[in-house]
């Protein structure tokens, strides 16, 4: 199962990289969200999936799944959520002010 999830994460990374190398700003942001999904999936899979019950003491199980990665993912999700929101608004402002969402036209330096 871990192998499968790791491959899925790899595919997400590939698609994300492809999107980030795109010229369109919105696709870049989509690529970044895919990146964060892949990271969280990797973080979840990397220390073994489903090694025991859900980490709730009420389950009274013999073994529990490692709760540390889950806490890390939760933290990382909210951070990347905030970043995506900020990036979307920034992209919107840029579109309004500069009138383009093409990264080629956002270069700005005429002599380069």
């Amino acid at each position, binding site marked *: 199962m871990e192998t499968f999830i790791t491959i899925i994460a790899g595919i997400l990374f590939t698609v994300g990289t492809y999107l980030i190398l795109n010229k369109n700003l919105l696709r870049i942001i989509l690529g*970044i969200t895919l990146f964060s999904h892949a*990271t969280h999936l990797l*973080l979840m899979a990397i*220390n073994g999936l489903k090694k025991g019950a859900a980490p709730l003491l009420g389950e009274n199980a013999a073994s529990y799944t490692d709760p540390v990665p889950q806490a890390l993912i939760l933290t*990382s999700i909210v951070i990347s959520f905030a*970043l995506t929101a900020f990036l979307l608004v920034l992209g919107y402002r*840029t579109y309004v002010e500069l009138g383009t969402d093409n990264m080629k036209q956002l270069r700005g330096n005429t002599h380069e």
Partner: protein
Amino acid sequence: MSNVLILPIIIPLLTGMLMIFFRRHVRMQQWLIVISLLLTIGVSTFIIHRIFRQGIIVLDVGGWHAPYGISLVGDMLSALLVLIASIICLMCSLFAFGSTSNDHKVHFVYSYILLLLCGVNGSFLTGDIFNLFVFFEVMLISSYVLLALGGKKIQLRESIKYVIINVISSTLFVIAIAYLYSITGTLNMAHLSERVATIGQDGLLTTVSLLFLSVFALKSGLFLFFWLPGSYSAAPPAIAALFAALLTKVGIYAIIRTFTLIFYHQPEITHTIILCMAAITMILGALGAVSYWEIRKILAYNVIVAVGFILFGVGMRTFESLTGALFYLIHDMLAKALIFILGGAIISIFGSDKLRNFSGLLLFRPSLGWLYFIAALALAGVPPLSGFVGKVIILKGGITEGHLIMSVIGIVTSLLVLYSVIKIFIHSFWGETLLSEGDQKATGTSALLPGSILVTFIIAMGLGAEWVLTYVEQAAEVMTNPSIYIDAVFKQID
């Protein structure tokens, strides 16, 4: 009593939050920011004093002991950097009082400066690698807002690039932490160091360490600095000074911490790569610094050269070279803040940063001119000033360790740095003046107070190098001998 360690993080955080409620009261915000930063400086001086007398301070947050909870660890390295960061933050805010527009001030600029300092101080003091990531994000999110605040076209354009680059490097940081956690099963840095030492740093761990290196290299502008010149020249002057002095240095601190505490077992791979990257960084940075005719670009490339030079010292990993690197790091934070503040003042007087367009400022602003001249000499490392001591120690280490090519690169790039900053001096201060007698007499004066305070620091640090070195050497001792750090963190358990 070790609770004192949380104060440099929590004072800026609480003041920054408090200031959100007084958006329109700019005068009050200015008083608040000065008071809170003076408090932070006082507290960090006290922390340094205590560490100097009694060794490393460890605070287990929430009372959970070392590997299970988050511990804040104050050793001399972190405490010195916290003190310098707070001083720089105060100077940049003093500069911001006069140099930023009123529109800026009512849109929470002081809150974000304090939250940025909270992130920086937290990154220096934390003893947990995931917590380091979180404090990095606290710092970076504030820096995104500070960069974009104002909404000019160039700011929007550059902050898009800056945010994308940093989000990707943060993603890589989380991946690196995930791999490290799956191999070692811990997140506490002291515990990580112990585990890596027991299982041995094999190929897998070395790969993970290189992933960490590339993440921190992106943050600090070591070799992967392509994003830096653009975004640092888009920010308003006071913010650019803050960025140049603090942001890249947190990346350097993270490299120093991970590669002296955790991944120090395979220096022939990791530290050779650091040295190569440092050499290329110095060369490319110096080339950039001499090739541009815009003040902002020249100064931004100077940041890059200094990053290369500090990591040259770190890459050699002897006691002497680490002492030199830390001394130079402290000097460079002060000098970069100073020269960006003065450069910002020059730009605001002329209203442009093209060097070919103006000259003859010395007649109207002699004090600004001489402050700039001292800053330029300090940056290049001329003897009575602070840049000299760090450079000499690193270069001496380089020659005795047999890194001759690196040392030559270090010396040559120092000359190029001197050329690039003196070029600004000659073209803006000398020559026939283009300004009329009363031409904007009032602009640029806000740089004089923070500028002269920082110059005093730089001269004092150069003259009192012996005294500063006693502190720096204590920090280098921990860097060369990680067991001091580990013992301090796990002391309570025994």
